[in-house]
């Protein structure tokens, strides 16, 4: 065969080729780096923040601009903003991960069932998804917050629900394609149950599109969580959460713009990180991008 005539890259298994593409992409390095930094900060927050999260308020340092002691200044209670932003990455990452997991957990079965069975089931489920997509996400969030009461969990659940349609559609599209592949048709011909086919043959092929989508959505989810808690749906404004910190910063806008800097930067950077990482993952995992490399 003419495989020997081809480049090394093509002789390796697809996973390895993807990894190579991923490694070569600058956005993978930058995005991955930013995400890694946030994960490390969130993980090690209690040990690496300049001050303790339980720092007592100090009336002598209210809303100070950045200084050597307080790199991002102090907040309305005289607490170090950098410390609170670092702790905020815990809540924000956690909120992103939980809400996206929720979206996957709800969206995957809906998409899989719709894609596999097709026909009426498909139309019914997909029209439902279309209707859900037609609602502005803030409205859904408000409904959730109204029924659960304003809290961090309400925001996380709301963001999860907002993202369900996105995942359901992606899963359905993939299932539609995979269900027509030869090995699946063969299993079906051998009399495999639908459960076996979906569970053992279709779901594994969802891993890469879902990874890409999840990583892209994580950025959006963090932004949405911050946005909703900025609107006051997070309930408690005293917690170290980026959106809540921005809400308070808004009150001090006329006297101290610095307060918004820390949480604002953190949100932008984390969203940028996840988006770059997601882009790089998509480029690496998408078989079609092979063509562009050749």
């Amino acid at each position, binding site marked *: 065969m003419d495989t020997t005539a081809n480049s090394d890259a093509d002789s390796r298994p697809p996973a390895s080729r993807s990894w190579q593409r991923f490694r070569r992409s600058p956005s993978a390095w930058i995005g991955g780096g930013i995400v890694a930094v946030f994960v490390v900060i969130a993980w090690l927050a209690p040990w690496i923040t300049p001050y303790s999260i339980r720092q007592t308020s100090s009336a002598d340092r209210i809303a100070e601009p950045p200084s050597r002691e307080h790199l991002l200044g102090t907040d309305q209670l005289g607490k170090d903003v950098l410390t609170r932003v670092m702790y905020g990455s815990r809540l924000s990452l956690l909120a992103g991960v939980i809400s996206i997991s929720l979206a996957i957990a709800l969206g995957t079965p809906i998409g899989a069932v719709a894609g596999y069975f097709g026909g009426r089931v498909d139309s019914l489920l997909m029209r439902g998804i279309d209707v859900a997509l037609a609602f502005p996400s803030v409205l859904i969030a408000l409904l959730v917050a109204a029924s659960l009461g304003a809290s961090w969990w309400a925001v996380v659940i709301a963001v999860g629900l907002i993202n369900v349609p996105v995942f359901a559609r992606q899963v359905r599209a993939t299932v539609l394609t995979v269900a027509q592949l030869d090995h699946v048709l063969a299993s079906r011909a051998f009399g495999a149950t639908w459960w076996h086919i979906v569970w053992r043959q279709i779901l594994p092929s969802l891993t890469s599109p879902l990874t890409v989508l999840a990583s892209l959505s994580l950025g959006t989810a963090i932004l949405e969580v911050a946005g909703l808690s900025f609107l006051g749906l997070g309930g408690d*404004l005293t917690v170290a959460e980026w959106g809540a910190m921005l809400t308070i910063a808004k009150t001090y806008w006329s006297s101290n713009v610095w307060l918004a800097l820390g949480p604002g930067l953190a949100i932008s950077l984390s969203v940028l990180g996840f988006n770059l990482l997601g882009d790089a993952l998509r480029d690496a995992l998408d078989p079609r991008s092979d063509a562009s490399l050749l």
Partner: protein
Amino acid sequence: MLVPPLPPQAGVVLVLLAGALLSTGGGCGGSGSGGGSSASDSVLIYAQPEDPKTLDPINTDIAEAVHVLTNVFDTLVTYDDETTEIVPALAESWEHSEDGLTWTFRLRPGVTFHDGTPLTSEAVKVSLERLTQEKHPLVFDTARPYRSAYAMIDQIETPDESTVVLKLKAPSAILLANLAMFPASIVSPTALTKLGEKSAEHPVGTGAFKFVEWSRDEKLVTAAFDEHWRGRPKIDQLIFVPVRENATRVQRLSRGEIHLADSLTPVELDSLAKRSELAVQEAVGMNVAYLAMQTEKPPLDKLDVRRAIYMAIDKRALVKLGYAGHAQPAVSMVPPAMWGYSDAFEVPPYDPPAAKALLEQAARQHGFSLPLKLRLSVMNQARPYLPQPQAIQGYLKEALAQIGVEVSIDARDVNQHFEHLMAGRHELGLAGWFSDNSDPDNFLYSLLDSDNISEAGNNLSRYRSERFHELMLAGQKELDTAKRLELYREAQALVAQDLPVVPLVHTSQRAAHVKRLQGFTLHPTGLVRLHQAHFAEAGAP
């Protein structure tokens, strides 16, 4: 006629106002003060943090509504423009019988309501009976938070058109002060009958400004009442707009789109005071910000627990953190600027380690586990007595964490917040009170007496003390000032013993306005009366 015709300039003004509103909405920041100075000189726009919920004087106690009511309605008696001395208003003169049980008020002749109805003794009778009677055909919402303040009135007689006789159940030292309060506003009986339930959205009084229109959450327009007994106000229109965000109020004030704003943060006010086009007024306030502890909810029913909470809070720190120094730590619910104030009693000291020990001991004794989880209900909007609720709630959460109380924050918009507290659904609640009259009864009885425990009562701690109740009733009946003082001293000492509340601070009243605005001064009672307000000639700084 339901809607009085607009004055000739009003059309122009409304167009200008709409333009100003649009330009803010679009964020293009057009200057509102630039064009049409002659038209804008006759309109005063007052920005408040919230829109009133109702304009029925008997059914509100929210400052935003009161600010409207005091300009649309008059009362029988009122306060002097600058002091808390009681002066005639709709009643020209009054006298009381030897035994203090019969009060005769002579009404000012020639006063008419905005709808043309003449002011008669019958109108006064209807207005006051809406407060005193359990059931009244012209009461459309029975909440009436101030009802108990008028319980001393037994019967209202109207011997002739211009004479009102109040028969009291017992002599009362607070009758005049309470008649000067906004719930006792005299309402047009014709309008009440005609409008029914709708009268809560369309107030008709005898005040300096007559109600024109109200688009909820947008603007509430009132216009000068030409036939007002003190003469026509100097401005043509007084418009109330709700502007929830502090930052937006500040921006719009500095652009000249609004002329008067309150409930700003101390830091903002300090920076506004430096601007040449703006002025900031500061005056002693008769108010208190306090932490209400729902004494019906265990373990807050235990004195030791309330005492521990009291000892964990450093009021001096609060003055700096929440008020930038423009306040003083409170020991009593009664403000020091008010007659009847006492601090001749012991209050628990600020001592977190001792508080922690006390709470641990209480936990063992009463069998609850630590950390003690408590909900702190707070309001989203700034209040005159709580200009920075977020800073205060942040501090309280942290201060209580030190002694083993884990506080979760339960935030609501201000109207819902107070409904929540009045119904007693909270555990800890951030609250405050602005004097409606200059009498300590207005603080002690209104906020702590068992008469005011109900779905809409202001005893937010649901404090029940027989002795306190006795003292309150005695104080209301006692006509000798020195003896009354003794009663209120004892009552304040009793509160410091039972600790149903933590009085936090007394704030200075502050308001910012454009410098051109004159004839407006902060009143010690917090009333905002704009009858004399006007704009300086163009050209003045």
